[in-house]
């Protein structure tokens, strides 16, 4: 059986639409007011973001935070560099090294002697 509508079927549908439109225009005032109140109540609700959007946003924020931490956080110093200040401290404070500093002229002379001859 063909399900194509004939011309008179289409005209019937147009007449039905016209009648239905009339019922909307002549709607009872109390019903119209209740619909209006329902609409305003619905508009008070805040649109909720979809779960997928929330996950995507959360992932993006977490990624940015991780990147920022990586870029701006103080880099861990290598073992060699980390040890330097302590070595310097020992060098300055030990008695031997104070004597070493006093003999600095001798060491300069020794170095010059090595290069020249």
């Amino acid at each position, binding site marked *: 059986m063909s*399900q194509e*509508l004939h011309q008179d*079927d289409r005209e*019937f*549908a*147009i*007449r*039905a*639409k016209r*009648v*239905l*439109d*009339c*019922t*909307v225009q*002549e*709607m009872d005032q109390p*019903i*119209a007011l*209740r*619909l*209006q109140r*329902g*609409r305003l*109540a*619905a*508009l008070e*609700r*805040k*649109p*909720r*973001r*979809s779960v997928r959007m929330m996950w995507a946003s959360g992932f993006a924020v977490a990624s940015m935070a991780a990147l920022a931490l990586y870029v701006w956080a103080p880099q861990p110093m290598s073992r060699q560099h980390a040890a330097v200040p302590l070595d310097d401290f020992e060098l300055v404070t030990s008695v031997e090294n104070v004597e070493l500093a006093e003999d600095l002229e001798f060491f300069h002379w020794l170095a010059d002697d090595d290069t020249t001859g």
Partner: protein
Amino acid sequence: MALPRSLTSAYSGQCSLSGRVSTLEERRALDRFLAGVERRAFRMAQIATGHDDEALDLVQEAMLKLVERYGMRTEAEWGPLFHRILQSKIRDWYRRTKVRSRWRLWLGRDEDGGEMDDPLEAIADTVTPSADHQLQTKEAAAALDAALRTLPLRQQQAFLLRAWEELDVAQTAAAMGCSEGSVKTHYFRAVHTLRTLLGNHWP
């Protein structure tokens, strides 16, 4: 609830907004959209349920869900989404009512003291135009309502969405959650049943 982009084409002409707008503008746009659709939505729900209060509840629930879940979507998407939500709520109501009627029948009692919750009972009550309906249009509307209520729900939905909302087959299928072939069948049968019920001289 995802709708193919093509389904929103019929609504795209109703709006000039294409992307996100400020919250105030979005709210105004939603208000305009709902104000434009609420009365027809109420009539659809009223025809399906036979009750003003039930119909008002269903429309309000549909409006709430649209604002809450899909208010962030573009304006062109609201029409198909709203109809899908509303038709889904009508179907749920219909199923609940049928189950309730079956239980009531099985228990052999009428909980509401004669108040008619069963859609089939509501049909019989509205077939005869009341004395108040003197105007021809009101009589025609009453007759159409009554005839529509005799249809199975799917045929009723297909007829109202296709003939009244003027959705195309694809949009109607999306709103009803069925195939395009089913929409064609339901619509065809609905038109022929209604014409038989209402006669050649209607309205």
